[in-house]
């Protein structure tokens, strides 16, 4: 334990040190980039090693890098399985080529407009992503890619199936190199920001992300739009290199090629993507000597690479999400409380449900549920398995929409609101079967939930400018304070999924509190805990209830805990409220004994 803590401190110091040297680091990176460029161009000019042929391959590598990195943003980081990336590339290629060839526009604006047009396509394609997931989304995006291709096939202004020849050859190595570098930097900056954490949260657990206040709709569309933009730019570069485009160049296999690049590189690894772009582009060329057998060998090597490196060449190696400083150890926890504290001037009822019912395919899970929670109350919700307790939580947090009735929170009707909006208004929850972002660090789990006032914008994130640094530091510091309150600060850089069970439960509560709620819903927090842990939990809940001035609603089977903790207990059975009373009266209630407690418990 002690050594772990030391290691974390060491890491935090290390990262802080690099943080301080950010400027120098940026300069070194820039210098490296420039050196790489001059090396390649110098060798090419001198005719050593790099002939026109190899320079051309390097250009394809650069274009494929842009394709891969931009798809990785959608697929690897946001977890949205897209098979339509070639469609975006096609839009960018055609729009840019049309501008330069037919309208005579200069290259730079043409690329920009091409990228923007593709981004618009991303907006359209992003919409099904709001309803579909996994393989079904993959098919829908595949369909969009094909539709785009068929539309171009029928557009005679750009040559239809015959294609568009004679596009000016504007694309140089410098253009591709610069755009690829820009893509990598922008996507990297985006990923390591507030917005990037939201994207990764969606990948890890969409439902949990939504209840932590991440507007999943907005962020998914953002991922598609940004990803599509860069694919469009790649398309523009491609068109002005090959000088002839036709719809068949942007078919399904092109999307597959981009997918192969990111999987081979490692989903969620930018450096891996760059490496894989190089391998995938260069390999078929290197195999030219085998003539007819070339593609046979290529496909065999692809299979073997996946068999031996199923997580890709790099895995998710470059990412730890722990590049930022860990905050000041001495700052008082009181600030956090103050920040998260709700205003105390509202009228006593915090939450009110009126006649809520919920049907699942003819089965009434909850019926006529009426409940009023007053400011500062600590209420238990108990009942047999299948009584509808979790369903009530889902309705309150917007994950399920009530079949009838309404829910009011702080005087506002929240019945039809989205989970992220409800969270924004001040309701946070935990889950029965812990739903952490289990592949991310403990610190990141809390950071995702954190939202300051006037958060920095995406532009600021990408440019690392404006409020970015100060806010990131702030988020980090406050997150660490939260972790400290829950005794997790010395595990901040561990992967959440590897924490012991009790610590995961605590982390989930820390994460919920980090969103700054006024009402906290806890779903079986003591499940799977032994008596000692349960006892500690009891103290913890009491403490945060006091500390953050919260109203708490709690589902729990451990009667010991419920009786000691709650001021009032509501009992559900088969969707009906059968009792709502003080603990002492509940245990004497006949209906509760018959349905839930059993004789001996009394």
């Amino acid at each position, binding site marked *: 334990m002690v050594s772990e803590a030391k290691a974390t401190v060491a890491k935090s110091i290390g990262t802080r040190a690099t943080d301080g040297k950010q400027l120098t680091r940026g300069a070194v990176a820039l210098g490296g980039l420039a050196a790489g460029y001059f090396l390649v161009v110098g060798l090419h000019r001198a005719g050593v090693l790099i002939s026109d042929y190899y320079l051309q391959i390097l250009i394809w590598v650069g274009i494929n890098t842009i394709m891969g990195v931009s798809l990785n943003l959608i697929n690897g980081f946001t977890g949205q399985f897209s098979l339509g990336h070639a469609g975006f590339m096609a839009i960018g290629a055609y729009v840019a080529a049309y501008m330069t060839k037919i309208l005579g526009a200069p290259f730079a604006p043409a690329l920009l407009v091409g990228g923007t047009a593709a981004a618009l396509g991303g907006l359209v394609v992003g919409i099904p992503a709001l309803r579909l997931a996994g393989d079904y989304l993959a098919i829908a995006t595949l369909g969009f890619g094909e539709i785009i291709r068929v539309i171009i096939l029928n557009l005679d202004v750009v040559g239809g199936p015959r294609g568009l020849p004679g596009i000016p050859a504007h694309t140089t190595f410098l253009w591709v190199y610069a755009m690829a570098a820009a893509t990598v930097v922008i996507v990297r900056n985006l990923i390591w920001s507030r917005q990037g954490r939201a994207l990764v949260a969606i990948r890890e657990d969409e439902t949990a992300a939504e209840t932590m206040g991440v507007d999943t709709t907005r962020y998914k569309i953002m991922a598609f739009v940004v990803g599509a933009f860069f694919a469009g730019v790649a398309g523009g570069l491609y068109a002005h290199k090959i000088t002839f485009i036709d719809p068949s160049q942007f078919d399904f296999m092109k999307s597959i090629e981009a997918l192969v690049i990111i999987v081979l590189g490692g989903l969620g690894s930018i450096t891996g993507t760059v490496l894989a772009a190089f391998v995938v582009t260069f390999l078929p060329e290197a195999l030219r000597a085998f003539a007819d057998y070339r593609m046979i060998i290529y496909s065999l090597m692809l299979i073997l690479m996946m068999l031996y490196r199923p997580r890709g060449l790099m895995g998710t190696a470059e990412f730890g999400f722990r590049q930022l400083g860990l905050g000041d150890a001495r700052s008082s926890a009181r600030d956090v409380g103050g920040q998260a504290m709700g205003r105390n001037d509202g009228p006593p009822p915090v939450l009110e449900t009126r006649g809520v019912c919920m049907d699942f395919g003819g089965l009434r899970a909850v019926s006529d549920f009426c409940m009023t929670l007053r400011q500062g109350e600590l209420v238990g919700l108990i009942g047999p398995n299948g009584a509808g307790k979790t369903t009530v939580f889902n309705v309150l947090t917007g994950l399920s929409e009530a079949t009838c009735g309404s829910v009011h929170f702080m005087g506002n009707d929240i019945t039809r609101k989205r989970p992220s909006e409800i969270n924004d208004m001040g309701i946070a929850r935990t889950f029965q079967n812990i739903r952490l972002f289990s592949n991310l660090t403990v610190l990141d789990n809390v950071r995702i939930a954190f939202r300051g006032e006037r958060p920095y914008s995406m532009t600021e994130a990408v440019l690392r400018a404006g409020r970015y640094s100060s806010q990131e530091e702030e988020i980090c510091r406050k997150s660490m304070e939260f972790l400290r309150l829950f005794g997790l600060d010395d595990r901040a850089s561990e992967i959440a999924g590897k924490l012991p069970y009790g610590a995961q439960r605590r982390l989930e509560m820390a994460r919920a509190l980090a969103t700054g709620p006024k009402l906290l819903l806890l779903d079986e927090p003591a*499940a799977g805990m*032994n008596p000692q842990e349960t006892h500690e939990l009891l103290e913890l809940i009491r403490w945060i209830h006091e500390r953050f001035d919260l109203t708490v609603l709690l589902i729990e*089977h451990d009667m010991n805990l419920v009786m000691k903790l709650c001021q009032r207990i509501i009992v559900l059975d088969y969707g009906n409220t059968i009792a709502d009373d003080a603990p002492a009266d509940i245990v004497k209630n006949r209906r509760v004994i018959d349905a839930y407690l059993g004789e001996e418990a009394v």
Partner: protein
Amino acid sequence: MLLEVENLHVHYGAIHALKGVSFSIDFGEIVTLIGANGAGKSTVLRTISGLIRPTDGSMTYQTALTGSSTGTSGAGSTGGAERQVNLCSLPAHRLVDLGISQVPEGRRIFPNLTVMDNLELGAYCRRDKAEVARDFQMVFDLFPRLKERRAQAAGTLSGGEQQMLAMGRGLMSRPDLLLLDEPSMGLAPLLVREIFEVIARINQSGTAILLVEQNASMALAVASRAYVLETGSIALQGSAAELAKDPRVQAAYLGSA
């Protein structure tokens, strides 16, 4: 001994999950394994049933040569018609034939299949149709509620009913040794008692049970012997009654400190 586990080591990648665990179960016994979350209880069960490969150690299992269908009647008999099997080298699906059945943590029923289908899958390895029909009756006697819901998709059952189904399914292979992983997890107090009553009844018919349980007080009440697992090794062992009185156990697992 029905099952003798010696010096079991399990690694998950770099994590050393079990560090030389040894314990045994005799015919017809209920043995319970208690311990904190993450101590490795489920890992022990999953290793016995073959879902995880141990990196070291041995697991010796005594089986009646006549096959598992006579398992229950063979309980306690240590006649010559037995052989020893080392479980370490067997894949998971071969264990059912040997008379070992596991009811996994979190129930793991097949949600889209009906209750009947789930139970039939429990008897997947058996060919004695008449006996299987008798065992359906036995399961329905133990859990009358399953009979009412036999044609329903298992996923629509409540948590308690799903636990019953998982146990019923585990019994359908007529095991000599039943491995129960956290059967009371997430259940209402009324149901927890019901489940433990059933565990006792199953044992009365001769089936040996290895019970991994969070609810230590209930587990110690029903078991004859117990082991306490702490961070991958056995910390304490003894008869259940003794351990229930042990101050260390009381402090850490019974909440009566």
